[in-house]
Protein backbone atom coordinates (compact mmCIF):
# COMPACT_ATOMS: atom_id res chain seq x y z
CA UNK A 1 0.00 0.00 0.00
CA UNK A 2 2.96 2.34 0.59
CA UNK A 3 5.74 2.24 -1.94
CA UNK A 4 8.92 4.26 -2.04
CA UNK A 5 10.54 4.05 -5.47
CA UNK A 6 14.15 4.94 -6.21
CA UNK A 7 14.28 8.01 -4.01
CA UNK A 8 17.45 10.12 -4.17
CA UNK A 9 18.07 13.30 -2.24
CA UNK A 10 21.03 15.62 -2.11
CA UNK A 11 21.54 19.02 -0.56
CA UNK A 12 24.01 20.71 -2.88
CA UNK A 13 27.08 18.48 -2.96
CA UNK A 14 25.89 16.51 0.02
CA UNK A 15 24.30 13.31 -1.29
CA UNK A 16 22.11 11.99 1.50
CA UNK A 17 19.99 9.26 -0.09
CA UNK A 18 20.57 7.25 -3.25
CA UNK A 19 18.07 5.04 -4.97
CA UNK A 20 16.09 4.08 -1.87
CA UNK A 21 13.14 1.77 -2.48
CA UNK A 22 10.89 -0.05 -0.06
CA UNK A 23 7.40 -1.47 0.20
CA UNK A 24 4.96 -1.62 3.09
CA UNK A 25 1.95 -3.91 2.79
CA UNK A 26 -1.34 -3.79 4.68
CA UNK A 27 -0.91 -4.65 8.36
CA UNK A 28 2.87 -4.93 8.15
CA UNK A 29 5.48 -3.35 10.34
CA UNK A 30 8.63 -2.51 8.45
CA UNK A 31 11.63 -0.94 10.16
CA UNK A 32 14.28 1.25 8.68
CA UNK A 33 17.38 0.68 10.74
CA UNK A 34 20.43 2.87 10.39
CA UNK A 35 22.97 4.93 12.26
CA UNK A 36 22.27 8.52 13.28
CA UNK A 37 22.97 11.01 10.53
CA UNK A 38 22.54 8.28 7.93
CA UNK A 39 19.62 9.90 6.15
CA UNK A 40 16.78 8.40 8.18
CA UNK A 41 15.22 11.76 8.94
CA UNK A 42 15.57 12.85 5.34
CA UNK A 43 13.80 9.71 4.13
CA UNK A 44 11.16 10.37 6.71
CA UNK A 45 10.60 13.91 5.45
CA UNK A 46 10.33 12.61 1.90
CA UNK A 47 7.68 10.04 2.85
CA UNK A 48 5.63 12.56 4.84
CA UNK A 49 5.74 14.86 1.83
CA UNK A 50 7.59 17.68 3.59
CA UNK A 51 10.60 17.27 1.30
CA UNK A 52 10.51 16.73 -2.45
CA UNK A 53 13.18 14.24 -3.52
CA UNK A 54 15.47 14.99 -6.46
CA UNK A 55 14.47 11.68 -7.93
CA UNK A 56 11.98 8.93 -7.29
CA UNK A 57 8.38 8.67 -6.13
CA UNK A 58 6.27 7.93 -3.07
CA UNK A 59 3.04 6.06 -3.76
CA UNK A 60 0.20 5.58 -1.31
CA UNK A 61 -2.42 3.08 -2.52
CA UNK A 62 -1.10 3.72 -6.01
CA UNK A 63 -1.55 7.49 -5.66
CA UNK A 64 1.50 9.65 -6.25
CA UNK A 65 2.03 11.71 -3.09
CA UNK A 66 5.63 12.74 -3.75
CA UNK A 67 6.30 16.16 -2.20
CA UNK A 68 2.67 16.56 -1.18
CA UNK A 69 2.14 16.91 2.55
CA UNK A 70 -1.27 16.03 3.87
CA UNK A 71 -1.41 12.32 3.12
CA UNK A 72 0.85 10.59 5.62
CA UNK A 73 1.44 11.91 9.09
CA UNK A 74 4.05 10.87 11.55
CA UNK A 75 4.94 10.52 15.16
CA UNK A 76 8.28 11.37 16.71
CA UNK A 77 10.21 10.75 19.88
CA UNK A 78 9.00 14.19 20.92
CA UNK A 79 5.24 13.77 21.30
CA UNK A 80 4.60 17.32 20.03
CA UNK A 81 1.32 17.59 21.85
CA UNK A 82 0.54 21.28 21.92
CA UNK A 83 0.75 22.33 25.59
CA UNK A 84 -2.14 24.77 25.25
CA UNK A 85 -4.66 22.26 23.94
CA UNK A 86 -6.31 19.53 25.99
CA UNK A 87 -5.62 15.90 25.04
CA UNK A 88 -8.99 15.79 23.31
CA UNK A 89 -8.27 18.93 21.30
CA UNK A 90 -4.75 17.80 20.45
CA UNK A 91 -6.04 14.53 19.04
CA UNK A 92 -8.84 16.35 17.23
CA UNK A 93 -6.36 18.60 15.42
CA UNK A 94 -6.02 16.52 12.21
CA UNK A 95 -9.82 16.38 11.95
CA UNK A 96 -10.16 20.13 12.49
CA UNK A 97 -7.53 20.76 9.84
CA UNK A 98 -9.61 18.71 7.46
CA UNK A 99 -12.63 20.91 8.19
CA UNK A 100 -14.58 18.67 10.56
CA UNK A 101 -16.71 20.80 12.93
CA UNK A 102 -15.27 21.02 16.44
CA UNK A 103 -18.01 19.10 18.25
CA UNK A 104 -17.94 16.24 15.73
CA UNK A 105 -14.14 16.07 15.89
CA UNK A 106 -14.18 15.88 19.70
CA UNK A 107 -16.85 13.20 19.58
CA UNK A 108 -14.74 11.14 17.23
CA UNK A 109 -11.74 11.49 19.55
CA UNK A 110 -13.79 10.42 22.56
CA UNK A 111 -14.86 7.25 20.73
CA UNK A 112 -11.21 6.21 20.49
CA UNK A 113 -9.83 7.32 23.87
CA UNK A 114 -10.53 4.03 25.66
CA UNK A 115 -9.08 1.96 22.85
CA UNK A 116 -5.83 3.89 23.15
CA UNK A 117 -5.77 3.53 26.95
CA UNK A 118 -6.58 7.17 27.46
CA UNK A 119 -10.01 7.04 29.11
CA UNK A 120 -10.66 9.99 31.40
CA UNK A 121 -7.74 12.05 30.08
CA UNK A 122 -9.62 13.94 27.33
CA UNK A 123 -9.99 17.14 29.30
CA UNK A 124 -6.50 17.11 30.83
CA UNK A 125 -3.52 19.12 29.62
CA UNK A 126 -0.55 17.26 28.11
CA UNK A 127 1.63 18.41 31.05
CA UNK A 128 -0.57 16.37 33.38
CA UNK A 129 0.13 13.06 31.60
CA UNK A 130 3.01 10.62 31.89
CA UNK A 131 5.45 10.09 29.00
CA UNK A 132 3.85 6.82 27.93
CA UNK A 133 0.36 8.29 27.91
CA UNK A 134 1.50 11.28 25.92
CA UNK A 135 2.96 8.95 23.29
CA UNK A 136 -0.34 7.10 23.12
CA UNK A 137 -2.16 10.39 22.64
CA UNK A 138 0.31 11.30 19.90
CA UNK A 139 -0.40 7.96 18.23
CA UNK A 140 -4.14 8.55 18.44
CA UNK A 141 -3.61 11.90 16.75
CA UNK A 142 -1.56 10.22 14.00
CA UNK A 143 -4.19 7.51 13.63
CA UNK A 144 -7.03 10.02 13.30
CA UNK A 145 -5.08 11.67 10.52
CA UNK A 146 -4.30 8.63 8.39
CA UNK A 147 -6.00 5.45 9.36
CA UNK A 148 -3.88 3.23 7.14
CA UNK A 149 -0.23 4.11 7.51
CA UNK A 150 1.65 5.33 10.55
CA UNK A 151 5.13 6.72 10.11
CA UNK A 152 7.01 6.46 13.37
CA UNK A 153 10.44 7.98 13.97
CA UNK A 154 12.00 6.55 17.13
CA UNK A 155 8.76 7.12 18.98
CA UNK A 156 9.72 5.24 22.12
CA UNK A 157 13.38 6.13 22.52
CA UNK A 158 12.75 8.82 25.15
CA UNK A 159 10.93 6.40 27.44
CA UNK A 160 12.49 4.38 30.25
CA UNK A 161 13.10 0.67 29.61
CA UNK A 162 10.05 -0.64 31.46
CA UNK A 163 7.64 1.86 29.92
CA UNK A 164 9.25 1.18 26.57
CA UNK A 165 8.64 -2.57 26.57
CA UNK A 166 5.10 -1.99 27.82
CA UNK A 167 4.61 0.41 24.92
CA UNK A 168 6.02 -2.17 22.47
CA UNK A 169 3.49 -4.76 23.56
CA UNK A 170 0.71 -2.22 23.53
CA UNK A 171 1.66 -0.96 20.10
CA UNK A 172 1.73 -4.40 18.46
CA UNK A 173 -1.61 -5.17 20.06
CA UNK A 174 -3.38 -2.01 18.96
CA UNK A 175 -1.76 -2.10 15.54
CA UNK A 176 -3.40 -5.47 14.90
CA UNK A 177 -6.70 -4.36 16.35
CA UNK A 178 -7.03 -1.21 14.27
CA UNK A 179 -5.35 -2.81 11.24
CA UNK A 180 -2.61 -0.23 10.98
CA UNK A 181 0.46 -0.55 8.79
CA UNK A 182 3.60 0.93 10.27
CA UNK A 183 6.84 2.25 8.91
CA UNK A 184 9.16 2.41 11.84
CA UNK A 185 12.41 4.34 11.87
CA UNK A 186 14.89 3.39 14.56
CA UNK A 187 18.54 2.99 15.48
CA UNK A 188 17.74 0.36 18.10
CA UNK A 189 18.45 -3.17 16.78
CA UNK A 190 16.61 -4.97 19.56
CA UNK A 191 13.53 -2.89 19.03
CA UNK A 192 13.63 -3.48 15.28
CA UNK A 193 13.99 -7.27 15.62
CA UNK A 194 11.30 -7.45 18.26
CA UNK A 195 8.67 -5.50 16.34
CA UNK A 196 9.31 -5.86 12.62
CA UNK A 197 8.11 -8.12 9.87
CA UNK A 198 10.97 -6.82 7.78
CA UNK A 199 14.01 -4.71 8.57
CA UNK A 200 15.55 -2.49 5.90
CA UNK A 201 19.13 -1.55 6.65
CA UNK A 202 19.91 1.98 5.55
CA UNK A 203 23.69 2.35 5.39
CA UNK A 204 26.50 4.12 3.61
CA UNK A 205 26.93 7.65 2.43
CA UNK A 206 24.85 8.50 0.49
CA UNK A 207 22.46 6.23 2.35
CA UNK A 208 20.89 3.36 0.54
CA UNK A 209 19.10 0.18 1.54
CA UNK A 210 21.78 -2.49 1.49
CA UNK A 211 19.87 -5.39 2.96
CA UNK A 212 16.32 -6.41 3.78
CA UNK A 213 15.95 -8.93 6.59
CA UNK A 214 12.70 -10.79 7.11
CA UNK A 215 12.02 -11.62 10.74
CA UNK A 216 10.19 -14.95 10.54
CA UNK A 217 8.52 -15.64 13.90
CA UNK A 218 4.91 -14.39 13.84
CA UNK A 219 3.98 -11.36 15.90
CA UNK A 220 3.41 -10.85 18.76
CA UNK A 221 6.59 -12.50 19.84
CA UNK A 222 6.87 -13.78 23.38
CA UNK A 223 8.60 -12.17 26.31
CA UNK A 224 11.60 -14.48 25.93
CA UNK A 225 12.07 -13.96 22.20
CA UNK A 226 14.81 -11.38 22.82
CA UNK A 227 16.67 -14.05 24.80
CA UNK A 228 16.44 -16.76 22.13
CA UNK A 229 19.37 -17.88 19.92
CA UNK A 230 17.24 -17.00 16.92
CA UNK A 231 17.08 -13.38 18.10
CA UNK A 232 20.84 -13.27 18.55
CA UNK A 233 21.30 -14.72 15.09
CA UNK A 234 19.27 -11.85 13.59
CA UNK A 235 21.33 -9.43 15.60
CA UNK A 236 24.58 -10.97 14.35
CA UNK A 237 23.38 -10.70 10.74
CA UNK A 238 22.48 -7.04 11.18
CA UNK A 239 25.75 -6.20 12.90
CA UNK A 240 27.72 -7.85 10.13
CA UNK A 241 25.74 -5.96 7.49
CA UNK A 242 26.11 -2.60 9.19
CA UNK A 243 29.74 -3.31 9.90
CA UNK A 244 29.41 -2.20 13.50
Amino acid at each position, binding site marked *: MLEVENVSVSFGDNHVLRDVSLTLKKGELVSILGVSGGGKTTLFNVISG*LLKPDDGRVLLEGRDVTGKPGSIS*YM*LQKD*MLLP*YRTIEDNCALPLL*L*RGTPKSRAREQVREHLAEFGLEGTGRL*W*PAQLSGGMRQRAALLRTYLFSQEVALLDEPFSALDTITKSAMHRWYLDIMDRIRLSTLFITHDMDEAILLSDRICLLTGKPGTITKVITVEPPRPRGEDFPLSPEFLEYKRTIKAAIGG
Partner: protein
Amino acid sequence: MKRKPQSTIRDKLPAAAALAGLVLVWQGVSSLGLVPAFMLPSPVMVVRAFISDFGLLMSNSVTTLKEAFLGLLIGVGLGFVFAVAMDAFPIVRRAFYPLLVITQTIPTVAIAPLLVLWFGYETMPKVVLIVITTFFPLTVGLTDGFREADPDAISLLRSMGAGRAKIFRYIKLPSAIPQFFSGLRIAAAYSVVGAVIAEWLGGFSGLGVYMTRVRSAYAFDKMFAVIILISAISLLLMGLIGLAERVLTPWRRARQERS
Protein backbone atom coordinates in the same frame (compact mmCIF):
# COMPACT_ATOMS: atom_id res chain seq x y z
CA MET B 1 2.11 19.83 44.27
CA LYS B 2 -0.73 22.27 44.71
CA ARG B 3 0.15 25.68 46.02
CA LYS B 4 -1.80 26.64 49.08
CA PRO B 5 -3.18 30.18 49.32
CA GLN B 6 -1.30 30.55 52.62
CA SER B 7 2.07 30.22 50.93
CA THR B 8 1.27 32.97 48.41
CA ILE B 9 0.42 35.26 51.33
CA ARG B 10 3.69 34.28 52.95
CA ASP B 11 5.48 35.13 49.65
CA LYS B 12 4.13 38.66 49.73
CA LEU B 13 4.74 39.24 53.42
CA PRO B 14 8.30 40.64 53.12
CA ALA B 15 7.24 43.23 50.52
CA ALA B 16 4.27 44.34 52.66
CA ALA B 17 6.49 44.59 55.75
CA ALA B 18 9.10 46.64 53.87
CA LEU B 19 6.42 49.02 52.61
CA ALA B 20 4.88 49.39 56.07
CA GLY B 21 8.34 50.04 57.53
CA LEU B 22 9.04 52.73 54.97
CA VAL B 23 5.75 54.50 55.72
CA LEU B 24 6.52 54.32 59.46
CA VAL B 25 10.00 55.84 58.99
CA TRP B 26 8.49 58.55 56.79
CA GLN B 27 5.86 59.35 59.44
CA GLY B 28 8.58 59.34 62.12
CA VAL B 29 10.76 61.77 60.18
CA SER B 30 7.79 64.11 59.73
CA SER B 31 6.51 63.84 63.32
CA LEU B 32 9.95 64.54 64.76
CA GLY B 33 10.17 67.64 62.57
CA LEU B 34 13.41 66.52 60.88
CA VAL B 35 12.12 67.78 57.53
CA PRO B 36 9.70 70.72 57.33
CA ALA B 37 6.14 69.74 56.39
CA PHE B 38 5.97 71.98 53.30
CA MET B 39 8.90 70.05 51.80
CA LEU B 40 7.87 66.58 52.86
CA PRO B 41 4.28 66.17 54.04
CA SER B 42 3.69 63.31 56.46
CA PRO B 43 1.73 60.20 55.37
CA VAL B 44 -1.16 61.33 57.55
CA MET B 45 -1.29 64.68 55.73
CA VAL B 46 -1.19 62.86 52.38
CA VAL B 47 -4.12 60.65 53.40
CA ARG B 48 -6.05 63.77 54.53
CA ALA B 49 -5.31 65.48 51.21
CA PHE B 50 -6.46 62.37 49.38
CA ILE B 51 -9.76 62.33 51.28
CA SER B 52 -10.44 66.05 50.90
CA ASP B 53 -9.75 65.99 47.15
CA PHE B 54 -11.28 62.56 46.57
CA GLY B 55 -13.99 63.74 44.18
CA LEU B 56 -11.57 65.79 42.10
CA LEU B 57 -9.03 62.95 41.99
CA MET B 58 -11.67 60.47 40.82
CA SER B 59 -13.09 62.68 38.07
CA ASN B 60 -9.57 63.37 36.80
CA SER B 61 -8.76 59.64 37.00
CA VAL B 62 -11.67 58.93 34.68
CA THR B 63 -10.15 61.21 32.02
CA THR B 64 -6.71 59.65 32.42
CA LEU B 65 -8.04 56.09 32.39
CA LYS B 66 -10.12 56.76 29.29
CA GLU B 67 -7.04 58.01 27.46
CA ALA B 68 -4.96 55.12 28.74
CA PHE B 69 -7.52 52.51 27.67
CA LEU B 70 -8.04 54.04 24.25
CA GLY B 71 -4.28 54.32 23.69
CA LEU B 72 -3.69 50.80 24.91
CA LEU B 73 -6.46 49.42 22.72
CA ILE B 74 -5.08 51.10 19.60
CA GLY B 75 -1.55 50.10 20.67
CA VAL B 76 -2.61 46.45 20.94
CA GLY B 77 -4.35 46.55 17.57
CA LEU B 78 -1.44 48.26 15.85
CA GLY B 79 1.10 46.00 17.56
CA PHE B 80 -0.81 42.96 16.41
CA VAL B 81 -0.99 44.14 12.81
CA PHE B 82 2.73 44.99 12.79
CA ALA B 83 3.72 41.71 14.42
CA VAL B 84 1.67 39.64 11.98
CA ALA B 85 3.05 41.56 9.01
CA MET B 86 6.63 41.18 10.23
CA ASP B 87 6.10 37.49 10.84
CA ALA B 88 4.54 36.87 7.45
CA PHE B 89 6.99 38.94 5.41
CA PRO B 90 10.64 38.94 6.50
CA ILE B 91 11.25 42.00 4.33
CA VAL B 92 8.76 43.99 6.41
CA ARG B 93 10.60 42.86 9.51
CA ARG B 94 13.97 43.93 8.17
CA ALA B 95 12.57 47.27 7.03
CA PHE B 96 10.61 48.26 10.12
CA TYR B 97 12.24 46.64 13.12
CA PRO B 98 15.06 49.22 13.33
CA LEU B 99 12.50 52.01 12.99
CA LEU B 100 10.54 50.54 15.85
CA VAL B 101 13.61 50.60 18.04
CA ILE B 102 14.28 54.22 17.09
CA THR B 103 10.77 55.27 18.18
CA GLN B 104 11.72 54.04 21.64
CA THR B 105 14.82 56.21 21.86
CA ILE B 106 12.83 59.44 21.43
CA PRO B 107 12.28 61.07 24.84
CA THR B 108 8.55 61.23 25.53
CA VAL B 109 8.74 64.69 27.12
CA ALA B 110 10.32 66.02 23.92
CA ILE B 111 7.62 64.91 21.52
CA ALA B 112 4.61 65.50 23.76
CA PRO B 113 4.63 69.32 23.25
CA LEU B 114 4.88 68.73 19.50
CA LEU B 115 1.88 66.42 19.65
CA VAL B 116 -0.01 69.13 21.54
CA LEU B 117 0.96 71.59 18.82
CA TRP B 118 -0.24 69.22 16.08
CA PHE B 119 -3.34 67.74 17.69
CA GLY B 120 -4.49 70.32 20.26
CA TYR B 121 -5.33 70.00 23.95
CA GLU B 122 -7.99 67.32 23.73
CA THR B 123 -7.72 63.53 23.89
CA MET B 124 -5.95 63.05 20.57
CA PRO B 125 -2.32 63.96 21.46
CA LYS B 126 -2.51 61.87 24.67
CA VAL B 127 -3.73 58.83 22.80
CA VAL B 128 -1.08 59.26 20.10
CA LEU B 129 1.65 59.46 22.74
CA ILE B 130 0.37 56.34 24.49
CA VAL B 131 0.17 54.46 21.20
CA ILE B 132 3.78 55.40 20.41
CA THR B 133 5.00 54.15 23.79
CA THR B 134 2.83 51.03 24.13
CA PHE B 135 2.84 49.44 20.72
CA PHE B 136 6.56 48.73 20.91
CA PRO B 137 6.52 46.25 23.82
CA LEU B 138 3.41 44.67 22.31
CA THR B 139 4.88 44.31 18.84
CA VAL B 140 8.15 42.93 20.18
CA GLY B 141 6.35 40.52 22.53
CA LEU B 142 4.13 39.17 19.78
CA THR B 143 6.87 38.96 17.15
CA ASP B 144 9.14 37.06 19.52
CA GLY B 145 6.25 34.81 20.49
CA PHE B 146 5.52 33.99 16.84
CA ARG B 147 9.19 33.32 16.16
CA GLU B 148 9.57 31.02 19.13
CA ALA B 149 6.80 28.71 17.95
CA ASP B 150 8.11 25.12 17.85
CA PRO B 151 9.37 24.45 14.29
CA ASP B 152 8.77 20.70 14.76
CA ALA B 153 5.14 21.36 15.63
CA ILE B 154 4.86 23.51 12.51
CA SER B 155 6.31 20.67 10.40
CA LEU B 156 3.86 18.24 11.94
CA LEU B 157 0.92 20.45 11.05
CA ARG B 158 2.30 20.90 7.57
CA SER B 159 2.48 17.14 7.17
CA MET B 160 -1.20 17.08 8.08
CA GLY B 161 -1.87 19.47 5.23
CA ALA B 162 -2.16 22.74 7.17
CA GLY B 163 -1.48 25.96 5.27
CA ARG B 164 -0.05 29.19 6.64
CA ALA B 165 -3.34 30.48 8.03
CA LYS B 166 -4.01 27.30 9.99
CA ILE B 167 -0.43 27.10 11.24
CA PHE B 168 -0.84 30.66 12.45
CA ARG B 169 -4.09 29.90 14.20
CA TYR B 170 -3.14 26.60 15.80
CA ILE B 171 0.56 27.12 16.54
CA LYS B 172 1.88 30.64 16.24
CA LEU B 173 -0.94 32.58 17.85
CA PRO B 174 -1.31 30.40 20.96
CA SER B 175 2.48 30.13 21.29
CA ALA B 176 2.67 33.92 21.52
CA ILE B 177 0.10 34.30 24.32
CA PRO B 178 2.57 34.30 27.23
CA GLN B 179 4.85 36.78 25.46
CA PHE B 180 1.88 38.92 24.54
CA PHE B 181 0.87 39.20 28.18
CA SER B 182 4.39 40.15 29.28
CA GLY B 183 4.27 42.92 26.69
CA LEU B 184 0.77 43.95 27.72
CA ARG B 185 1.75 44.29 31.38
CA ILE B 186 4.58 46.67 30.48
CA ALA B 187 2.38 48.53 28.01
CA ALA B 188 -0.35 49.01 30.63
CA ALA B 189 2.11 50.68 33.01
CA TYR B 190 3.43 52.84 30.16
CA SER B 191 -0.08 53.84 29.14
CA VAL B 192 -0.97 55.43 32.50
CA VAL B 193 2.38 57.20 32.79
CA GLY B 194 2.13 58.30 29.15
CA ALA B 195 -1.32 59.76 29.70
CA VAL B 196 -0.15 61.68 32.78
CA ILE B 197 2.89 63.11 30.99
CA ALA B 198 0.81 64.19 28.01
CA GLU B 199 -1.74 65.86 30.30
CA TRP B 200 1.01 67.56 32.27
CA LEU B 201 2.27 69.16 29.08
CA GLY B 202 -1.10 70.45 27.97
CA GLY B 203 -4.72 69.57 28.64
CA PHE B 204 -7.96 70.47 30.37
CA SER B 205 -8.47 67.57 32.74
CA GLY B 206 -6.79 64.40 33.96
CA LEU B 207 -4.38 63.47 36.71
CA GLY B 208 -1.50 65.17 34.88
CA VAL B 209 -3.43 68.45 34.75
CA TYR B 210 -4.30 68.05 38.43
CA MET B 211 -0.59 67.61 39.15
CA THR B 212 0.37 70.84 37.39
CA ARG B 213 -2.29 72.70 39.41
CA VAL B 214 -1.26 71.38 42.84
CA ARG B 215 2.36 71.97 41.95
CA SER B 216 1.82 75.65 41.18
CA ALA B 217 -0.06 75.86 44.51
CA TYR B 218 2.87 74.21 46.32
CA ALA B 219 0.39 71.68 47.75
CA PHE B 220 2.86 68.84 48.10
CA ASP B 221 0.52 66.77 50.24
CA LYS B 222 -1.85 66.66 47.25
CA MET B 223 1.07 66.00 44.94
CA PHE B 224 1.99 62.91 46.96
CA ALA B 225 -1.64 61.83 47.03
CA VAL B 226 -1.91 61.91 43.25
CA ILE B 227 1.44 60.15 42.79
CA ILE B 228 0.27 57.33 45.04
CA LEU B 229 -3.03 57.19 43.18
CA ILE B 230 -1.23 56.88 39.82
CA SER B 231 0.93 54.05 41.15
CA ALA B 232 -2.14 52.32 42.53
CA ILE B 233 -3.95 52.60 39.18
CA SER B 234 -0.94 51.15 37.33
CA LEU B 235 -0.64 48.30 39.80
CA LEU B 236 -4.35 47.60 39.55
CA LEU B 237 -4.19 47.48 35.74
CA MET B 238 -1.21 45.14 35.84
CA GLY B 239 -3.03 42.98 38.37
CA LEU B 240 -6.09 42.79 36.15
CA ILE B 241 -3.93 41.78 33.21
CA GLY B 242 -2.24 39.12 35.34
CA LEU B 243 -5.67 37.81 36.28
CA ALA B 244 -6.79 37.72 32.64
CA GLU B 245 -3.59 35.85 31.79
CA ARG B 246 -4.25 33.23 34.46
CA VAL B 247 -7.79 32.71 33.20
CA LEU B 248 -6.73 32.51 29.56
CA THR B 249 -3.75 30.18 30.05
CA PRO B 250 -5.03 27.39 32.30
CA TRP B 251 -2.44 24.91 30.98
CA ARG B 252 0.38 26.84 32.63
CA ARG B 253 -1.14 26.23 36.04
CA ALA B 254 -1.52 22.54 35.21
CA ARG B 255 2.22 22.36 34.67
CA GLN B 256 2.97 23.96 38.02
CA GLU B 257 0.69 21.54 39.79
CA ARG B 258 2.57 18.57 38.40
CA SER B 259 6.12 19.67 39.06
